[in-house]
Structures are given as C-alpha cells and as structure tokens.
C-alpha cells in the first residue's frame, strides 16, 4: 500500500467505486428481468468489476485478481442456475443465462489481459 498510494491515501474521504456499483446493480437487474442482453452484460460488468475495485481499494483484497476470479465463479454459477431453472418454467431463461456467461467471459478476458500486460508493480497494490 505504501509503495502505491491509493485514492484513499490521498483523499481519505473519497472513493470512485460506490456510484458505479450503485449504477451497475439496477442496470443489470433491468437487463436480466426484461431480457435485454446488452444491459444485462454491461450492468453485470460494471457491478462486478467495481466490486472487485472497491475490495482492492479498501484493502479487503491484496490483488485485483482474487476478487475478479471470485466474481467470474459467481457469474458462471448464476448462469448455470438460470440454465437449470429454464427447464422448470415456460419462460425462456436461456438468453439471460447467456448474458451472464458473456459477462463472465469478458471478465475472464480482462483478467487474462491484465495478467499479461499490466506491469507487476501496478498490478499488485
């Protein structure tokens, strides 16, 4: 933490993440409930990505990768649950499940890109 002062070191009373978490949650909810693919994917990425960010900023996580991996795992499990639930209702849940998987895939791509291209010193805070 000392080597890379975070926002909270400079501005102890500010954090950029809460507003985006609060935006990501309703956008993803609207996307999933009304089956609007782009909103569901975008909202989930915003929500999950910012949760990973805020965990890192508040020192609940030491690197970004742990939280991102956890988010991917939760998304995959949620998408799988939607696929299973699809068999029990007449309402089509498949596209919603695909939206959740798409978010997980994009986050995974981000994770790989981050691992490959972000210099180590900045990657680990």
């Amino acid at each position, binding site marked *: 933490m000392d080597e890379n002062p975070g926002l909270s070191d400079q501005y102890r009373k500010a954090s950029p993440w809460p*507003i985006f978490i609060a935006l990501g949650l309703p956008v993803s909810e609207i996307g999933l409930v009304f089956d609007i693919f782009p909103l569901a994917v975008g909202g989930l990425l915003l929500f999950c990505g910012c949760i990973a960010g805020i965990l890192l900023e508040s020192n609940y996580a030491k690197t970004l990768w742990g939280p991102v991996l956890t988010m991917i795992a939760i998304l995959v499990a949620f998408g799988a649950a939607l696929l299973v639930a699809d068999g029990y209702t007449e*309402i089509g849940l498949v596209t919603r499940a695909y939206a959740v998987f798409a978010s997980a895939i994009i986050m995974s791509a981000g994770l790989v890109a981050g691992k490959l291209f972000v210099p180590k010193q900045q990657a680990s805070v």
Partner: protein
Amino acid sequence: MEINAQIALTVFMGVLLVAVAAWLTRIEDWRSYSSTAGGVVSQGERSEYIEQEKPAGLIRWLTTVDHKDIGILYGIYGLTAFAVGGLMVVLMRVELATPSTTLVGPALYNSLMTSHGITMLFLFGTPIIAAFSNYLIPLIIGADDMAFPRINAIAFWLLPPSALMIWAGFFAGPLGLGFEAPQTAWTLYTPLSTGSAGGSLDPAGGAGIDLMLLGLHLSGVAATMGAINFIATIFTQRDENVTWANLDIFSWTILTQSGLILFAFPLLGSALLMLLADRNFGTSFFLADGGNLLWQHLFWFFGHPEVYILVLPMMGIVSYVLPRFAGRKLFGFKFVVYSTLAIGVLSFGVWAHHMFATGMDPRLRASFMAVSMAIAIPSAVKTFNWITTLWNGRIRLTTPMLFCIGFVSNFIIGGVTGVFLASIPVDLVLHDTYYVVGHFHYIVMGAIAFAGFAGIYYWFPLVTGRMYQATLGKAHFWLSFIGTNITFFAMILLGYGGMPRRYATYLPQFTSLNVIATVGAMILFVGQIIFVWNLVNSWYAGKRVESGDPWDLKRDGVHTVEWQWFDRKIETAITDGGEEEQNAVTDGGEPIDKSENN
C-alpha cells in the same frame, strides 16, 4: 426487441463502460501525481481540512464517503422526493375539489396516488431520517466516521436509480416505451398487481409495475445496508466516553430503527422478488389459493414495522430537540428508551390489524387487536414524558420548538384515532374509508414530517454555517400546522360519513368536506413553498453563524456534542481568518435581535 435497438444499446453500454474505465484510469493518474502537484490545499480557507481529504467540485460530491457529505446528499435527495410527492398530491387534491373528474382522469389519479405513497414513504421518509443519522450519529457518539464509509456511499447512490425506476411509468408514456405508471396503490395487493392479462401486459401499469418492484427492492437494499452500517457504528465506533448508560436518545432510536429495518426490509425484498417472479418467470407464489392473503401477510409484516421505522427516529429527534428549548433535560429518559425498545418489539406483532376485514380467523384477529392496543402504552409513555418535559420549563418558541410541539399535538390526534382503528368492530366500519387516510396522515405528515422540519431547522446552522430566516420558518410552521389539521381532520369526518378511499370521484354529499380538505392542502402547499425558499435562500445568502452556540444551549448546560464540534470548527475558521460577516441572530436564542424578523 428490434435488432437496431439492440445494436444501439450495445454500443451505448460499450461506450459507457469504456468511459467509466477511462475515468477510473484518470483517477489513477490523479492520485499518483496530486501529492506533488500542489494547489489542492488552499491555505487560509475554512474548507482547507476538507480539501486535504476530498477532491474538489462536483467530483467531491460524486465520490465522497464522508458521513457529513452523505448526510447532506440524503437530505437534498429526501427533500426533492418530498417536493415531487407533494406536487403529486396537490394535483390529486385539486381533482378532488369537485365530485366528478375534471383535471385528472381515474387512471392518472390512481398512478399519482400509488407514486405519492411510495415516494413519501420510501424516497422521502426513510432517506430524510438517514440524512439526520448520517450527519449526526458519528458526531454525537464520537466516531471518526461510519463503520463502513463506502457501503454508506453505495447505500445512498442506490436511491437515485431507485427513484427513477419507481417514477419510470410517468416518463414511459411520453417516450413511447409502451407501459404506464403503476396503479396498484403502494400496498401492491394481489391479484391486481400480479397482472390480470398475464406477465407485463396488465392494465394496472404493465412493465411500470415491474420497474417499480425493482426500484422498491433497490431502496430496500439501500435501507438494509444503511441499517447494518448504523448498528455496526453504534456498537463498535463509540468514543470510550460514550457508554450504553449515557448514549443519547437519538442514537437509541436509530439503533432500534436499524434493528427493525434489518428484520423488515429483507422480508419486503423477498416478497417483491416473489411477486416479480409471478409476473415474469412463471412462478405462482400469489396465484394459488390463499395467495392474496399470503401477499397481505408478507407485505404487512414489513408494512407495519415500516411505520415505526419512520416514526421512531423522528420521536428521537423530538426527544432530543424539545428539551433544549424547555431549558431542561428530557423527563424520564430511561423510560423513553424503554418505550422505544418496547415499540420496536411490539411493532412486529400488530401487522394483521391491517387485515381485519379480509375474513381471517377471528381468534387471530383478537390477538392482533390486543397487541395493537398494547402499543398505545409505550407511545403514551413517550407523549407524557414530552409533556412533562415542557411542564414548568423555560419554554422558547423557536421554529424547531414549534414543530416539536406541533408533532406532539398531531401525534396525539393521529395516535388516538389509531387506537379506535385497532378495535375490530370499529375497524370493520371504518376500514377503507377516508378515516384511515386522515389517521395515518396525522402521523406521517403531522408527526413524522413535522419532526423532520424541527430537525432541519435545529441543525440548519450546524450544517450550513448560516441561520435561516426565522419569520419565514414560523410562517412555515403555522401554515403547515393549520393546513395539516384542516386537511386531515376533514378526512376523518369524511371517513365517519362513509366516503371510501382511493377514488378519483365521490358522491355529491361529500363535496363540502372535500373542498375544505383541498383548501387545507393548498395552505400546506403554500407553507412548503415558503420552506423551500427559506432553505435555499438561507443556505446561499443567510447570515453566517459566528457563535458555536446559536441556540444559547450553554445557559442550560445542554451544549451537546455536535454543537461543541461546531464550536471548535468555528473557532478554527476564525483563527484561519474566516470571512467577516454580520453576526447571526438566533431564532429564540437570547437576546432576540430585531433583525430576526428579516
């Protein structure tokens, strides 16, 4: 959805995400370089200490995790929602000035009524309490901030999207989105709210109901996050001098309220999701036999504690502010705390008194009647303690004090009319009449909003560093007090006459009392315009407070912690060369200056 719209949305979401990522990267730069960039701290200005900890300008308000800033944001949000909900009801009352429909059609009336209720309870009532508690609790209990400052910010920022979703139906029509504002009333009773035509095609609002359910759910999530935060803060962040024995009354009420939220709101959230699933995902929680009664049980198990979620902290504000202007300490402090806890516990055992007319088991009804009557006891204990605090006190009729006394007065009328409603035989006669509307508006407007006004005026100098215009404050009080009593007493009489609630039209024999109620509502409306003007104008141009004790509390030895903090803040500002302006006058502080009447 059309392919073009899908592509447009995809592009929009992509651009939004890239923009967010780019902005966050800029912050990365900003935090890397700002330590050497200088210019952040402007020396000699009174806000220096703030600028060391927060960025400047609009970004400060979007990124703040400071409990005081978040308190101010909650306050502005709550008052904006109060204005929206108020304007909705002005339209409705104008419509009700005549027996037939003239200005507003039945569908719009139903939509306005639904949104008015939800706006006032969820978007004004709960947030305005959070405004006081966020700003004050950490100061009063000697905490540096809330236990989870970032959670605190998330809880607040969930509310603006929640409001937009609840009101979405009003924008959807003009935008051609194909759905309407919900017409279900705030209680969302099934089968009306499950959608008679199936899914989201029902005539009661269509997708507008789904959006409202999501919005309500979000506001519930926000309230729960806030409650957990307050419980953690009060339990773990207290200064070592602040023990359970000397914890102030406002913190006690917020702690109790947070406990109620913790048990009530998650249940509402579950019930809302079940309803959403019934409407959209083929489940049948409320569609099977008994489903309608199940909804009412779930809803009111949340709904009645919600009343106490709103009123307990407001009672806390009255218990905190009223003694300051009576020149003495709160009479029977311990018993006021015990009453708060008792109301908190009992509030979970009274919910079915909203359902006496549903045909439920009479033996169950009797038990709910007994507990509902019992809750009058701790409420009366509080009322008598407030009155006894005033007894032989050195009473100063400042604006906050007037609102506190108005609270007690209206609370007695609202409470006593409620005791009658708790009695099954009386309830069966008055159920679904305007008597009920009159009763609960005496509580939510006459008591809850009045205590909110008392708090806003009392702590206005603390938050803004300026004094409001006292004469306008008193005009606001008298117009509100007279308007409240004219409007809602007329409703109680209308209820005795048998006028049913929730209709845009009525029989001609109810015209006179309805006209009186509308006149009362207009008086209230004028009062609130004065309030908004006074607040905005005084915030920008009010006289600066230069004393750390604008209410002259030291004289009675009740210069409480938050004012001591304010005192230190002012001392620091003066040392730093704060602006020279004319001394502020106190509203009732002594001696009373003539310029108070500006």
